[in-house]
């Protein structure tokens, strides 16, 4: 089964406009997603469910509240930690990494 098959295409209330297919990176590996969809949506469609490792024991954490509230899906995006994969929109070329615990110090702007 192709991974994109898990996407909902019809919904009684929501519309799914056509979006541009783009490339981004998960842990250095190139993946495809739709521009502007939540990062977590693109990762789930690609079969990636572990997004974060917990603070104290390093247990796997993934998509949970889906509304930017629970901190379960925190990932590192382009060197910036604590990005909520469920609410952050996907952009072309984004480098997304799994966040281990509190994550790294944010990359400097210089």
């Amino acid at each position, binding site marked *: 089964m192709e991974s994109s098959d898990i996407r909902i295409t019809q919904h009684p209330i929501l519309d799914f406009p056509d979006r541009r297919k783009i490339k981004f990176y998960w842990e250095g590996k190139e993946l495809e997603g739709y521009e502007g969809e939540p990062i977590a949506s693109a990762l789930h469609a690609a079969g990636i469910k572990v997004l974060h490792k917990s*603070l104290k024991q390093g247990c796997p954490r993934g998509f949970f509240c889906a509304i930017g509230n629970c901190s379960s899906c925190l990932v590192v995006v382009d060197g*910036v*930690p*604590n990005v909520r994969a469920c609410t952050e929109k996907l952009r072309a070329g984004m480098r997304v990494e799994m966040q281990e*615990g*509190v*994550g*790294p*110090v*944010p*990359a*400097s*702007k210089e």
Partner: protein
Amino acid sequence: MKTTADAVVIGGGVVGAAIAYNLAKYGLKNIVLCEKDTFASGSTGRCGAGVREQWGAEGNIRMCKAAIDIFENLQEELEYDYDIEFVQKGYLMLAYIEKEWEQFNVNIKVQHKLGVNAVALTPQEAREIVPTLNTEGLYGATFNARDGHANPFHTTRAYLKAFERLGGEVCFFTEVTGIEKTNGRIQGVKTTKGDISAPVVVNAAGPWAAPVASMVGVDLPVYTERHQILVTEPVGRLFDPMLMSFSRGFYSQQTPHGSVVMGIGDPNEPKGYDIGHSWQFLRRMCDIMCSVVPALEGVRVVRQWSGLYTISPDAHPILGTVPGIDGYYHAVGFSGHGFMLAPIVGKVIAEMILDKELSIDISGLDLGRFERGDLRVEPSVV
């Protein structure tokens, strides 16, 4: 709630909790602690929670040294199930103007005399301790590895739990509304949950110390002032020691959890009980700390709050008895450093109440010093 007690402690912050615990530890049986809200809800739970020996005045250095001795074993002494998160990664005191640097060099001589092993550092040496530090504009720094910070909620709770195990009674949401006194002797307290008769009353009411003291006719020369503070999201290690500067007015620590707590004094802050917070603080705080540790620039603030300093005329606490009122004790006016003094103050106030030999001399910290004109001088307060 008991209606008679051997002692009533007013205030469920870290100072009240430490006094109550030490009284119970020394064997006093019927002790009630009254707190109008919940534990650590006044100044304690809002504080920056630093603990340092690097003071300018001998009295403060001696007391904080004794407090750190206790902090080092507090977790075990109180048999606390959780972690009070006492971490000794030092304080790095940063001097940005010549006058501040000169003061640090005076302070360090006093510290050395009293056995504190602080060292004076060049900006480059300071950067070796904190590699993320921006040394621009820095004259020099002093560092003392024995300084650190602890979790104020856990520390207070640890004291209260140990106090309760020793038979003490903790009453939250119980506000003391009056103190009974006849012929110069304390008779007990009136509270919103009923009266307690007791021969000893301890005022550890933090910001509300002056209104409580006025219940026995004591006029405390203290005032309250809002100090604002914020916390960031947790991130990887940015710096280990507490960073502090008097000329720039800030202090900042990264908690064991990874979030960064920071506060800054405002010279234009009016006196009062306001504990609202402002965007102006947020802006000023972030500007200053991002210049000190530029890596903070990409770190998000998650929350800001404020708390009250209860400031005495010489920025030293007011401890002990008041002549003419038998059974009244106070530990008040900590001027922003009550948390770090609490372990030793709790011990020594309990010793005073029980007529034991005092662990440390606090005779110069009585209320009478203001009338005598015998003020302490502390040059190093944020």
